[in-house]
């Protein structure tokens, strides 16, 4: 009998255990208050697909990070899979790929005395007529957002046209598969068709008065990056990688934005697949096999490696930016740990590294 009671005691004790266990470990608990923003940078941390853990990191002028800036500001999560960041006048646009939303922040510089304090407010969420958005460009008081639609469907890709005052989608322009990077020049919008599940090899030209496709420029396979300077469009085509079973050569193209003619072209060697492209004064910068290369816009037959970032410990280059004579390289590491931002001077010296959040892919200069 005595033993029976002991047993019952064990059971009751176990029951009581259950009341002291629940551990609601939300990130809300550790989200810091929004920092004071002056000059500096935003880093978009893509997060893991399906995990809703994209975030925005603010870096002040000394690259001191404040993480989860968007959550601190709005109280909400950014969404699923951050794709790109852009700035236009007094707005910041955050393009969220997998959750198909575009978050718009408004900012105003109130220059009082010596400080350049910037106030941010959440202005709009664009979700209607957006599906798998990638990048945004601005022209004619309109925003142009490339969208893959259903990535497995090559026939439903489009560019959404946004009214920058109301943030409503005005229209959608059907385009070829895989519209990726987009930029405006000379009243026109250029869309690089990198490809979604397939592989693209064209640039579409959109007239911003009629919002229709008025031209198509043939380039190499997988146009993954574009920049413009002095009415010239520079397009980096990465080529198809070896694992596709149909490897193609990479190329760099210089295109006249009025005539759409290819004025110069560089073919890379077999097996070389450069990525990313930035311009500064009369130079172009791209990455290839763990190095940043520099070439000149007037003649890019030769290129010089200026940064050997692989030896500095960049495991998996995930983003590339050139701001204020500094090169920013984001490292996604193994994709399931905190990323890192590497900041270089243009002479190739490593200036600083900063720990970011998951999969940092874009850097935006707030200045």
């Amino acid at each position, binding site marked *: 009998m005595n033993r029976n009671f002991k047993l019952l005691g064990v*059971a009751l004790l*176990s029951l009581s255990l*259950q009341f002291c266990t629940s551990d609601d470990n939300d990130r809300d608990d550790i989200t810091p208050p929004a920092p004071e923003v002056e000059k500096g940078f935003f880093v978009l941390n893509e997060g893991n697909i399906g*995990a809703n*853990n994209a975030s925005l990191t603010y870096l002040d002028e000394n690259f001191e990070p404040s*993480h989860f800036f968007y959550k601190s500001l709005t109280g909400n999560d950014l969404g699923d899979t951050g794709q790109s960041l852009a700035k236009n006048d007094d707005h910041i646009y955050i393009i969220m790929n*997998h959750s198909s939303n575009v978050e718009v922040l408004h900012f105003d510089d109130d220059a009082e005395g010596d400080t350049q304090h910037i106030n941010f407010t959440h202005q709009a969420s664009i979700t209607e007529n957006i*599906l798998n958005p990638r990048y945004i460009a601005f022209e004619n008081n309109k925003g142009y957002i490339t969208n893959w639609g*259903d990535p497995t469907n090559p026939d439903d890709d489009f560019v959404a046209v946004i009214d920058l005052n109301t943030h409503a989608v005005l229209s959608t322009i059907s385009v070829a598969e895989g519209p990726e990077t987009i930029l405006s020049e000379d009243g026109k919008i250029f869309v690089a068709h990198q490809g979604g599940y397939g592989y693209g090899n064209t640039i579409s030209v959109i007239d911003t008065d009629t919002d229709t496709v008025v031209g198509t420029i043939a380039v190499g396979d997988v146009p993954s990056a574009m920049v413009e300077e002095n009415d010239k469009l520079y397009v980096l085509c990465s080529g198809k990688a070896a694992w596709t079973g149909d490897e193609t050569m990479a190329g760099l193209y210089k295109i006249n934005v009025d005539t759409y003619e290819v004025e110069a072209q560089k073919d890379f060697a077999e097996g070389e697949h450069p990525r990313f492209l930035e311009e500064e004064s009369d130079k172009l910068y791209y990455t290839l096999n763990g190095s940043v290369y520099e070439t000149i816009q007037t003649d890019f037959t030769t290129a010089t490696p200026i940064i050997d970032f692989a030896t500095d410990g960049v495991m*998996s280059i995930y983003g590339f930016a050139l701001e204020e004579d500094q090169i920013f390289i984001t490292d996604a590491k193994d994709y399931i740990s905190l990323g890192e931002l590497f900041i270089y001077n243009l002479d190739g010296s490593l200036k600083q590294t900063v720990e970011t959040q998951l999969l940092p892919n874009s850097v935006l200069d707030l200045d």
Partner: protein
Amino acid sequence: MKNYLILLLCLCFYSTTFAQQKPIEQLEVVYLENNPLRDSVYTSNQLILNDSILKRSQASLTQLLNFNSTIYFKENGLGMVASPSFRGTTAQQTAVLWNGISINSQTTGQTDFNTVTTRGYDKVIVKPGGGSVVDGSNSIGGSIYLENEIPYNHNFENNVFIQYGSFNTYGLHVKSSYSNKKTGISIGLSKNASDNDYKYPKTGVKNKNGHYKNTNISLAAGTKLNKQHELQWFANIYDSRRNFSLPNPYALPNKYYDFNTRSLLNWKYYKQRFSSSAKVAVLTDRYIYYPNVNYWYHSKAKVETYLFKYDADYRLSKNMLLTGGLNLTRNQGSGTNFSQSERHIGAVALGFKHQATPSFIYEVMLRQEVNEHFDSPFLYRIGLQKEFSEVYTLKFNTSKNYRIPTYNDLYWNGLGNPDLKPETSYGVEISNLFSYKNYSLNLTAYYNKIEDLLRWTPSASGIWRPENTNNVQTYGLEAILSLTQSLWDKHFVNFNATYAYTISENTETKKQLIYVPKHKLTWSLSYAYKKINAYYQYINTGEVFHTTDNSKYYTIGSYMAGNLGLEYKLKQQLTIGLQALNVWNEKYESVLNRPMPGRNYTIYLNLNI
């Protein structure tokens, strides 16, 4: 693009009681068992989950084992893709065997535990520790056996089990069997479906696109031709459609079909000191995945497996047994992501068991595999058992185990890596068994070193390929407790508990592997009095990291959940039951951004005719 590739990879990698004669029998749901010398397991441990506990758990193997074993589960929302971590190992390092045949997916190497309906089986056995010598590839953390029993001498028996619950979840399970002294056949049909549109606790967000339905047909038949020959036939068909719930409201709705068939013929032969079993099996394993339900595009794969397995036992003397085995497997696969590929694996096994004294047994088993793609390691297991007293028994085991690369790893178009080596593991464990009357306690400590872990990792340019990466060491403690007690002759109480303390770390970085909690506790308590039976199942899982650097920002909090059930026996053959699942309405998830339902209810009827 690379993100979608990762997503695709991830996706690919993808009650009541029988009318009891007397309550005490029904209460004996979990027990530790020592099999007789003839069986392959002797010096290791087993946790057996039999019919009554199967009926009281939800129909998926995930729910059954999550609440009743030390195995940790990652479940992508209720009913969605679920994978185990057994003793801190990866999803592919748990072997699932159906009537002795491995059914881990050839494409992903793992079993999606939500595609196994427990209603199709008579018992489920959990065997912790490396078992590749007997169970073949993948048995590094442990093995799960799904067993069907062939009835003999039971005449007609029929069982109907109907259940209905929240979110329009229903289950219909019918099992009929007929047997006489020489021949028996048992056929089971199980259908489960749910709208699965639960609201996430606290946030109130609805689980969109999570509906599923599945059908399982099982068969077990046997005939004893004479005293020496017995023929057995086992078959199973599983057909399922699931829509995977959306991780965010604007994601494209998708759907996933599984279709598996298994058929196994077994010829058993006994003659004096000799016994043998010759098995021939054909398995098909097929999936089709539509990333967008509204579009034709899909990816798919199909692997057929042909298997021949021969095992023989020869009793050298009254207390010495020699065993030998031969396995031949042919896999033939084709799919969207790999071209037609075939592989052959052969294995020879040899074992010796000796009951040296009445209280001391040891066994040695060796296995050598052969195949055309990579060097197969030589595997072994050495086990011993010493019974010090009626109350205390000590067991010791050491083994070398392995896991072969999957079809995806080897043959994925352009990305597969034909130079992969198998993962190998060296394990050692010590178990202390205490038993007294109807109480038993098993305390086990183990250490496992896993080399050449197979992983898909990104290259510097962001291309993901499978590679043999780092080494991992796992170690920990397991405790399994079972108590059964009758009080004042009319009240019956049964208490079972499992606890696991698990360290699983990358030997280079010393960081805990993602999705491995350090603590997991389960317990269940049932109480029977006359026609009433009440039970409570409880789980408590510790915090897990989901980044490899164990960042404090990226953890999933610990959670607890409890299920409460009440049964009433209306008639001798008819029982009605009610369950409140997640009765404390806990907000929890086991995979990031995949919340599980809050409190919900189920009602069931169990009829035996």
